[in-house]
C-alpha cells in the first residue's frame, strides 16, 4: 500500500481507503491527481485501472520529465487530533481503562522520489475546535469509539490509549486532544493496519495530561512483516521543552 508503483502510460493508478480514493495519472510531462469520497469497496488496495470514472476533478502538476513511479507516504497530521468519543467514556474514581482509539491519517504524494503534494486527507476531512470560542486550538476531528481491540480501516491509525482517573469523582470523557508530533506509526507494508504509539492519559483535578510512549507494538498485533512507518516528529524531551517555552511565552506575555 505504501510502496512505490509504476504510473501507467494509459490508465490510472488508484489507492483506495475506507473513506477516500486517491488517483494519479500521467499527463505529458506532469501528473494529474484526483481525490474523491469512497464507498469503502476495495479499501486497502492500490491498483491500476483502465479509465477513471468520469466527472472527477483533477489537479495537474507540471514536472520536468515524464513521471515514472508514485507512492503515498503516510503522515501524522500536523494539527492535533480531537478524539470525540462515541459513546462517552465513563470512569469511576481512581480507576484505569485501557483500550484503542482511531484517528485519521494523512499522506504525501511522492513522485519519482520528490514529494509533490503534502497532507492529502485519507479520511473524511473534518476539523474541530478544542477550547473556548475565544481561545483554543484547531484540530483534526477524530470520531472514535473506545474499543478493546485495534480497529483501524485503511486510511486511519489505531492508537492504544490508557486513561487513568486520578480524581475522587466519576468522570465522563467525551473528547481528548492529542498532539501527534510525539507519535510514531507502525504497520504492515500492505497497509492493512497502521498502529500508533501508546498514549497515556491522566485526568486529575488540575487538568488532563496526555503523553505518548514510543515503542514497537506487540508482535501478535503487527505480525512478522511489521515495520516502523513513521518516527515521531519530536521526542518527548523536545516536546517538553517546546511546550515549556510556549507556556513561558504566554505567561510572560512575550
Amino acid at each position, binding site marked *: 500500500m505504501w510502496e512505490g508503483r509504476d504510473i501507467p502510460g494509459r490508465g490510472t493508478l488508484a489507492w483506495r481507503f475506507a473513506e477516500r480514493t486517491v488517483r494519479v495519472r500521467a499527463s505529458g510531462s506532469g501528473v494529474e491527481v484526483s481525490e474523491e469520497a469512497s464507498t469503502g469497496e476495495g479499501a486497502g488496495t492500490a491498483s491500476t485501472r483502465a479509465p477513471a470514472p468520469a466527472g472527477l476533478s483533477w489537479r495537474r502538476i507540471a514536472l520536468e520529465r515524464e513521471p515514472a513511479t508514485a507512492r503515498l507516504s503516510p503522515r501524522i497530521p500536523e494539527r492535533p487530533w*480531537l478524539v*470525540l468519543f462515541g459513546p462517552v467514556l465513563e470512569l469511576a474514581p481512581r480507576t484505569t481503562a485501557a483500550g484503542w482509539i482511531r484517528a485519521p491519517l494523512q499522506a504525501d504524494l511522492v513522485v519519482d522520489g520528490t514529494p509533490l503534494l503534502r497532507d492529502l486527507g485519507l479520511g*473524511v*476531512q*473534518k*476539523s*474541530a*475546535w*478544542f477550547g473556548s*470560542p*475565544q481561545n*483554543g486550538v*484547531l484540530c483534526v*476531528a477524530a*470520531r472514535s469509539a473506545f474499543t478493546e481491540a485495534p480497529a483501524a480501516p485503511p486510511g486511519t491509525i489505531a492508537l492504544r490509549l490508557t486513561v487513568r482517573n486520578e480524581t475522587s469523582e466519576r468522570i465522563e470523557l467525551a*473528547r481528548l486532544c492529542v498532539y501527534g508530533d510525539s507519535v510514531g506509526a507502525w504497520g504492515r507494508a500492505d497497509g492493512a493496519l497502521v498502529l500508533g504509539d501508546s498514549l497515556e492519559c491522566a485526568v486529575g483535578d488540575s487538568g488532563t495530561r496526555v503523553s505518548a510512549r514510543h515503542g514497537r507494538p506487540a508482535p501478535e498485533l503487527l505480525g512478522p512483516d511489521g515495520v516502523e512507518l513513521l518516527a515521531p516528529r519530536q521526542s518527548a524531551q523536545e516536546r517538553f521543552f517546546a511546550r515549556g517555552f510556549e507556556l513561558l511565552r504566554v505567561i510572560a506575555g*512575550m
Partner: protein
Amino acid sequence: MNGSDIVSTGTAADAAPSADAALPDLLEVVRSFISTQALVTALKALAIVVVGLALVRLAAMVTGRLARGRLQGRGPDLAVRAVRYAGFTLVAVNLFDVLGIDLSALLGAAGIAGVAIGFAAQTSMSNLISGIFLLSEKAFAPGDVIQVDASLGVVEAVDLLSVKLRTFDNRLVRIPNETMVKSNIVNATRFPVRRVDIPVGVAYGTDLARARMVLMELAAASPLVLAEPEPLFVADGFGPSAINLLFGPWVRKDDVLAVKNELVPAIARRFSEEGIAIAYQTLTLNGALEARIAAAPGKPEAKRGAARGGGRGTGKGKVPET
C-alpha cells in the same frame, strides 16, 4: 542696482588707504565678538544640540522597540513620534536658555495661542485623544472585519484622526476616531471561530426531529463545518406562517461566507428531497369564496371586489395566512 546708481567718490589710488584702515577695524569687531564668554556659550549650545539630538534619537529607538511588542497598528509610530517631538522641544528650550533668549514672553504668547488653537482645533484634538483611547483599548486591528453603524469592511488603517475601512465593494470609508469611540463596534474576526446562524422556517406540521436530523447530517457532511462545537439547533418559535428554526454551525472565521453559500442551497435541496416544506407567506382563498366568484362568471368587477374584500362580510371567506 543698475549703472546709474554707481557713485564714484575718487580714484582707485584714493580708495586703497581707506581699505587698509577698515581691515583692522573688522578684525577688532570679530575679535570682540569671539570673546571667551561667547565661545563658551557657542560650545555649550553645540553640545546641547549634539548630545540632545543623540539622546532624543536613543529615546525614540528604545520607545519604538518597547512599543512594537505592546502596541498594535500605528501605535508604535505614534509613541516614537511623541517621544521625538517632546525631545526636540526640550533641546530647543535648553538651547534658548543657554543662548540667553528669554522664553517667558514667548511661552505666554504660546499659551494664549494654544487656547485659541485649542478652540479652533477642538474636533481634531477630540479625534486625536479618541485615537489614543482606541489604540489602547485594542478592540480591533488592521485586517479585522468590523461594522460601525452601517459601515462594514476591513480595517485598512488606524490613524491619528480617523479609522479607514475598506468595504467589500472596494470603497474607502473614513470614520473619525471620535465617532468610533461613541459607536458600537462589531468585530467579526476577533475570535478564531464563529457561529453562522441560518434561520429556517418550516411549514406547520413538519416533523421537527426529522428536520433537525437533516440539518445535522448536512453539517456533518460539510468539510468546512467544525465537528466541535456542535451546531446549534433551536426551535425558535411559532411564526405567522412557519415554525422558526435556528441552525447555527460553527466554522473558522475565514469560512463564514463559504459555509453560507454551501449550506443554504444544500438545505433547500435536501428539504425538498425529504418532503420538508420551507414555509413562506401564502394567501389561501377558501372554497366558499371560490364558489361566490364562480357564481358571477360574467361580472369581473364582482370578482375583483370579492377578491379584494376577502369575504370578510360573510365570515366564511377568511383569508388566512398559512
